[in-house]
């Protein structure tokens, strides 16, 4: 009886470790830093720092110094068109805690958007930037399609 429980525990432990390894290797997986952040550090601290903003608010800060707009959609989508001045960053790099976005000055106001404004992404992205010491994170509600819907200018590259 005791040995079967032990065996079960070992199987669960091995599956857990395998799961974490696969998660690291998978292109859409969550980095170890973020994973630990969720379980150990808790998300309370970073949770409070993202502001959800509508299209109009993004429009008013376009091309203002101290503001950087980050596009986390696929590179194909970005190359087709994007918000003027936006920089493309890979979403999977962000979640892994690497990539060009983290080399930006920490006091910059970062406006981040995806295609449709998927709210389930907000917490993960907030954690990724929060851990790197960024203070001002803004998430575009409705994503890029809401920008287009309002008939705003776009840029292609």
């Amino acid at each position, binding site marked *: 009886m005791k040995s079967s429980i032990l065996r079960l525990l070992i199987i669960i432990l091995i599956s857990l470790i395998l799961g974490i390894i696969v998660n690291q290797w998978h292109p859409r997986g969550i980095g170890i830093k973020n994973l630990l952040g969720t379980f150990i550090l808790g998300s309370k601290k970073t949770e409070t720092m993202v502001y959800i903003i*509508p299209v109009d608010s993004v429009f008013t800060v376009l091309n203002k110094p101290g503001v950087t707009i980050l596009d986390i959609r696929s590179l194909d989508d970005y190359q*087709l068109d994007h918000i003027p001045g936006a920089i493309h960053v890979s979403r999977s790099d962000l979640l892994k805690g690497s990539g060009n976005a983290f080399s930006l000055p920490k006091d910059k106001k970062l406006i981040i958007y995806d*295609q449709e404004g998927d709210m389930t992404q907000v917490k993960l992205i907030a954690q990724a930037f929060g851990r790197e010491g960024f203070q001002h994170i803004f998430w575009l*509600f409705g994503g890029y399609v809401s920008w287009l819907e309002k008939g705003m200018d776009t840029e292609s590259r």
Partner: protein
Amino acid sequence: MGLRLIFLLTLAGLISTSLSQEFKLLSPVILDLGAIKEDSVVSGQIRFTNSGDKPLKIGRIQTSCGCTATQLDKLIYQPNEEGSIEVRFNSKGYSGLVRKTVTIFIEEGTPSSARVTLQVVVKPQLEINPAFVDMQDIPFKDSSVKRTLVITNNYDQNLVVDKITTNIKTLTIKPTQFVLKPGSSQTLDLKYQPVSEGRNDGYIEIEFKKPVEKMKRVPVFIKVIQ
């Protein structure tokens, strides 16, 4: 020297033949399907030609969502032959501007894949403005914060709002039950009492009974500061 030149010329020739692009889009990379109503279907054509000198074979077509269906009559196209892919978009469950992608994988020919973005505007028959309630940065000392939401009926018949509820304890909404005539609007008065500092996000659920049974959820973003 002569040999080297011949070699270089052959190499250049080989490269240019292998780079001859056979699949060429005739329709724009962003295919605008125009504006449609909710729960309807719109179709369009992705037109292309085989601009190479060898037959072109299309492998498969992939769409980014179940709402988009494609149809292709045949897979092999001779040089200079034109073809078209019929695309159909079903707007059920969508509102506002929608973008979906169609990827065409080419089995024999170049490039190995081509991408077309479909763009449709789904005109909502039921409008809720603004899209979310913004109560971020409200001071804790404020005894109550007021906001409004406007519901507009674009249906050609009466709209019956059966129930409005929220998962935020100290948020009150008035009215919670009413009937809207076609083309008219109703303003909802929202009142929030801050209880603690920090985030207290939630949502408002608006249940409609007529003309169709539907539930719309409006996010409420609350952040109380010192």
